């Protein structure tokens, strides 16, 4: 007699996620999903760039420099979202021992670091003409710099151990502990008096940004998000293949010692 291996809804949800731990199934699912994500990213970025550079107005105060917003803000949103995803994956790896959780977290980390770097660099390029300074140590900028260091720390820690399992576990703990920085980044402009402006989109109340500017902003954000998913799928497949490679090489070395 067949019995379901789960007793409640949480077990069932976990079991359904565990289905994708099978590398063959993941490979097929990701191969089917990747063209859509990559194509969607290209479309969203293409249309977004058209609106960002051509078909949106200059700001009444900032003039044409406001166009930097269309890369700076999506990068910042992705920097935070990817860290949240990394922390969630780390928790899933530590708590439920999902085989792909740590793989996904490690694959996401360099992408998040890249977005954070783009956010910091474009922010500096925007700050110099607007504020007169490439950098200030206000709460928003400092906490995003810490976010960048957390990404780099995660990558370094995961690679620092001979035993990859221990490295993943240590890095996962770092990701979880560092998650406290995410709400700090988000609310820094409310909690401290910062040079960086307060939130215009993700706030209580309607967006404090004109629709003609919100549209390219959201398009670029969607493009960045689909780009992240595409790169994540590529990197997870890559890491699964790398593990297979290590297993094959190990089997070879054992089969033919001294050959």
């Amino acid at each position: 007699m067949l019995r379901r291996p789960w007793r409640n809804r949480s077990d069932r949800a976990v079991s359904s996620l565990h289905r994708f731990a099978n590398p063959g199934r993941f490979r097929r699912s990701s191969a089917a999903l990747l063209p859509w994500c990559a194509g969607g990213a290209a479309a969203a970025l293409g249309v977004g760039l058209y609106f960002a550079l051509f078909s949106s107005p200059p700001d009444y105060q900032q003039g044409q420099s406001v166009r930097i917003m269309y890369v700076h803000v999506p990068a910042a949103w992705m920097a935070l979202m990817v860290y949240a995803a990394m922390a969630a994956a780390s928790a899933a790896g530590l708590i439920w021992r999902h085989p792909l959780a740590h793989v996904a977290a490690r694959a996401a980390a360099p992408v998040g670091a890249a977005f954070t770097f783009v956010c910091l660099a474009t922010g500096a390029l925007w700050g110099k003409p607007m504020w007169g300074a490439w950098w200030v140590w206000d709460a928003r900028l400092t906490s995003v710099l810490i976010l960048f260091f957390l990404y780099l720390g995660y990558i370094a820690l995961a690679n620092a151990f001979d035993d990859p399992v221990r490295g993943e576990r240590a890095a996962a703990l770092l990701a979880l502990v560092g998650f406290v920085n995410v709400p700090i980044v988000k609310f820094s402009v409310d909690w401290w008096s910062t040079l960086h402006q307060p939130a215009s989109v993700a706030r209580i109340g309607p967006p404090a940004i004109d629709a003609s500017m919100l549209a390219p902003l959201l398009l670029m954000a969607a493009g960045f998000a689909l780009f992240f998913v595409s790169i994540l799928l590529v990197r997870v497949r890559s890491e699964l293949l790398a593990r297979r490679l290590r297993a094959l090489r190990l089997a070879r070395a054992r089969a033919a010692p001294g050959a």
Partner: protein
Amino acid sequence: MEAIAAFLDMDGYAGYVWPAYAVAAAVLAALAVLSVRRLRRNQRDVAVLEADRPRRRRPRCADEGASEGDGEA
């Protein structure tokens, strides 16, 4: 021609706007290229080793295979 020059000038902010877009494009492109390059290299290496292996029917568990079945439960 003047319209293009005016567009590129970005009302004097060109030295900030265009490098910002260039940094974003360069970083994201580098990420994509490096990730895909590593994937292709791993695919190639795995294919080489799997072709080399003696053909044996083995119960397959947590490893990814290109041709020998697909791990269906």
